[in-house]
């Protein structure tokens, strides 16, 4: 029996699956999906064997460049991408934590200059599991459980 789709299929575009349910809106924000004109459907609190509750996003007519999609690895490390062309999956991709994180994580150090001046934050990834980010400016480490997306 065919599985019932909770979020309707798209003809062309990208499906981002296996997003932890609580991080759906972070993924949307990191990818800037609120600012693009494409048709977007998403479902959240769907049952998942891996994650318990997951979210899925389907973006019509959008194909992400390599590094662009890796940004979501911080909040959805197990995310899977399906590239859809004419209703068929033509490519599957996983995300990989990038070496440098620029512009979307807040430094945990309350005395870091980036929290006071209009400065783009920059981090070097020094640990992937659990995530550890070293601030390019104040040199302090922001851990996974302290991470705030800006």
């Amino acid at each position, binding site marked *: 029996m065919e599985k019932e789709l909770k979020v309707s299929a798209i003809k062309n575009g990208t499906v981002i699956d296996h997003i932890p349910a609580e991080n759906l809106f972070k993924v949307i924000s990191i990818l800037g999906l609120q600012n693009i004109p494409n048709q977007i459907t998403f479902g959240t609190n769907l049952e998942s064997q891996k994650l318990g509750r997951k979210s899925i996003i389907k973006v019509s007519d959008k194909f992400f460049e390599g590094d662009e999609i890796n940004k979501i690895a911080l909040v959805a490390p197990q995310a899977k991408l399906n590239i859809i062309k004419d209703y068929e999956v033509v490519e599957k991709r996983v995300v990989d934590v990038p070496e440098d994180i620029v512009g979307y994580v807040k430094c945990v150090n309350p*005395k870091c*200059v980036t929290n006071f*001046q*209009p400065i783009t934050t920059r981090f070097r990834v020094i640990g992937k599991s659990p995530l550890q980010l070293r601030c390019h*400016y104040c040199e*302090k480490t922001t851990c996974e459980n302290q991470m705030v997306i800006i």
Partner: protein
Amino acid sequence: MIKNKSLVSITDFSREEILHVLDLAAQFESNPNQPILQGHIIASLFFEPSTRTRLSFETAMNRLGARVIGFSDPGVTSATKGETLKDTIKMVSNYADLIVMRHPLEGAARYASEQSRVPIVNAGDGANQHPSQTLLDMYSIRKTQGRLEDLKIAMVGDLKYGRTVHSLIQAMSDFNPTFYFVAPDELKMPNEYKQFLDERGIRYEEYTDMADVLPKADILYMTRVQKERFADLMEYERVKNTYVLHNAMLDDTKDNLKILHPLPRVGEISEDVDLNPKAYYFKQAENGMYTRMGIIAGILTGM
């Protein structure tokens, strides 16, 4: 070797570059008045007051013959009007050949170095880095011991928040040291630095009693145990006297032992130590001036 390089963090300089600065410092110590920077203008921007560091840097600049512009108190600058750090640095880097800056926010000097047309020397960015202090500590160690390699260095006091000990550990790690860390439980050396040493195979031992390390140390690096660091004031009262050095404690120490302290001290070295030939902290502060001459001259002239 370091011409036109910024010095923001001690890790910006390689082992060779550090040794080069120490060699330059030795030259300036043997002849402190060398006006080789006549015609140069250096900016001294102190976004928070620090009298000792500022006087040391500005004396170094003056002894090199450079002219100095700047401020010692941010209250008199446009920063109080809300000017961004970027704008202040962009403006000053149009005027001066080098900027020495101190700022209360961590990472400010790194950011400034990305905005400036001229090199930046970090004279302290909050609790983060103060690389000229590390270099003067190393100069003092090499001068008193005749070498940097294979020394036994005891660090006492606040090893958790003390930026000087953290930077010194990083810089000395190229010279096969053995470290003895002596601190109360609240102020122990953070794991990230112990991990750093583990990765490099550098020996360290942890103690809570200074007496255990005094007979074996070549360098005794004292730091201040600050009351405000303790969540439990009873605990502070209990430990505060444990980390005070008295002259009588130095009886069974090595002949080559020297006592260093980044200053200011507030009671952690008793004044009766000052006359002991092993006390080196005032000379260490003087060495700071020669070291800063070496940093500035090396960056501006490439010597």
